[in-house]
């Protein structure tokens, strides 16, 4: 009994933590469950009632079965790739300037990077819509891309900056002492070391863009360029097709597999490093 108490005293925080972690998975489990349900009518896709649960594989075997669903998914992927590419490049350049140089206007730049993160998305959505209407820019692919790049930049800067600030500045000096030109020092020493930060930033940018609804809702207009979140929102009235749950579950599985694979690779690599040193 005494041993049990001692064990509890040491581990209770961990147990509470695991319970909260479990809570984070509850809705995901429900999405999986519902992906195997054939709802009675389109309005009951999101009713969890085990008495009327009707098991089916159809949502998984016929993912694109609902009109427009896979087109919307593809659009989200296009926008995601575009926004990731542009925002990662622009944000990485900014973070290099901020960490490796001291210049007039540096703190102002920091504030400008911080502001979009401190602004509620709805304000960015409304202000961009006002701008596009004022300039008479037709809403659609281009306006969505512009908006996504805009809100991704700050997150890229913060992520890359964190990695860059942890680098020992003497590394570059050492490289240059060994007669590397600044460009060689950058390409052969600095860039490889910062790369994990850039990769993390691009993953973050992609997931922010892929999942954005609030801002996208404002800058899509009536263009019909419907991203996946917009598709879900739009089908609210007609009823959400049950395939949405299968796609959401598949998205979860794919991302999870990616992250775990990356994990294992890192673990193996650090084990190898430990073995050789």
């Amino acid at each position, binding site marked *: 009994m005494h041993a049990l108490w001692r064990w509890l005293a040491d581990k209770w*925080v*961990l147990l*509470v*933590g*695991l319970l*909260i972690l479990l*809570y*984070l*998975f509850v*809705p*995901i489990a429900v*999405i999986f469950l519902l992906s195997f349900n054939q709802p009675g009518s389109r309005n009951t896709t999101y*009713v*969890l*009632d085990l*008495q009327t649960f009707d098991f089916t594989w159809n949502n998984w075997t016929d993912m694109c079965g609902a009109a427009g669903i896979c087109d919307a998914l593809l659009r989200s992927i296009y926008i995601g790739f575009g926004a990731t590419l542009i925002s990662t*490049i*622009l944000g990485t*350049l900014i973070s290099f*300037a901020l960490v*490796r*140089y*001291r210049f007039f206007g540096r703190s102002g730049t920091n504030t*400008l990077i911080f502001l*979009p993160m401190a602004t*509620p998305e*709805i*304000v*960015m959505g*409304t*202000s*961009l819509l*006002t*701008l596009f209407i004022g300039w008479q820019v037709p809403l659609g692919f281009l306006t969505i891309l512009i908006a996504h790049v*805009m809100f991704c*930049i*700050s*997150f890229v800067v913060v992520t890359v900056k*964190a*990695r860059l*600030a942890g680098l020992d*500045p003497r590394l*570059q000096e050492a490289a240059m002492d060994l007669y590397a030109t600044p460009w060689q020092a950058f390409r052969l020493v600095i860039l490889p070391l910062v790369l*994990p930060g850039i*990769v*993390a*930033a691009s993953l973050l940018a992609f997931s922010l863009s892929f999942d954005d609804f*609030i801002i996208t809702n404002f800058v899509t207009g009536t263009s019909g360029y419907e991203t996946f*979140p917009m598709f*879900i*929102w739009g089908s609210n009235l007609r009823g959400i097709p049950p395939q949405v749950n299968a796609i*959401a*579950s598949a*998205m*979860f599985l794919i*991302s*999870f597999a990616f992250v775990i694979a*990356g*994990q294992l690779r*890192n673990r193996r690599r650090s084990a190898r490093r430990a073995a050789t040193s």
Partner: protein
Amino acid sequence: MAALLPTASAGGAVSAEVPVEPPAGMRRRRWIPYALLAPGMLWLAVFFVYPVVQLFMASLWNPAGSIETGYVFDWSWSNYADAWEMFHVQFLRSLWYALITTVICLALGYPLAYAIAIKGGRWKNLMLVGVIAPFFTSYLVRTYSWKAILSDSGPVVDFLKWAHLLGPDGRLLATEFAVIAGLVYNFLPFMVLPLYASLDKLDVRLLEAARDLYHGPVRSFLRVTLPLSLPGVVAGTLLTFIPSAGDYVNANLLGGPNTQMIGSVIQSRFLVVNDYPIASALSVMLMVTILVLVTVYVSTAGTDEVV
């Protein structure tokens, strides 16, 4: 995961900024940093700063105009008074919901972040994957999933009725409870990640030292752990409060007419009613209120530099 770990510390958004002395060869070329900044900052200037200024101008348009006839800018400050008159209930409600959400997220997020950072051991990275796992599915689908969980025939309502905590006609959907539950769920990871980042940096030897000096666990938590994790608390509360105050997804999907938040009002004024002056005034009010609250909060909490 290591690839995502910097994201976790980035979510922390708090780093003691140590300016790096630039290498001697670079100091001479002063234009380089500006060249690096130019494209990104230009993007932010044109598509963030300028639109916000535009939005402010739009909030002073004469409300008599319409989208077909166009609007006249005539310093109509009365838009703000009208907006407040019509929607102050939703406005204050949003701030209130965001506050409750933040407090609950802190109460749930702190033990979780602590468990991962201090007690996680070799499971640390796996537990962090668990924290970001909700992001692997879509935000809207997650919120719809809560709608299913809290639905009238769902398990939670059944249980509460069985326990007589809810009357026979009682429901959870369309109540404050449902909206706040959705907000808490959706923004909890934003609280946990910065908390984790600051707790992970904590030197465990400090806790051992506190114990050696006969501090009990409670006192060493209050006097060592908590103060050292304060930057994470500040970043986490901001990252939770700001998006929840402006959210309209949870209120629209889980709430009812009595739980409408200011985000829903702005959204419908803009996209359904096309009442731009009032909607712009509401947006500006929300932004200014949040900026003022954030500034006061950060300067009171006394962390050096957020970002």
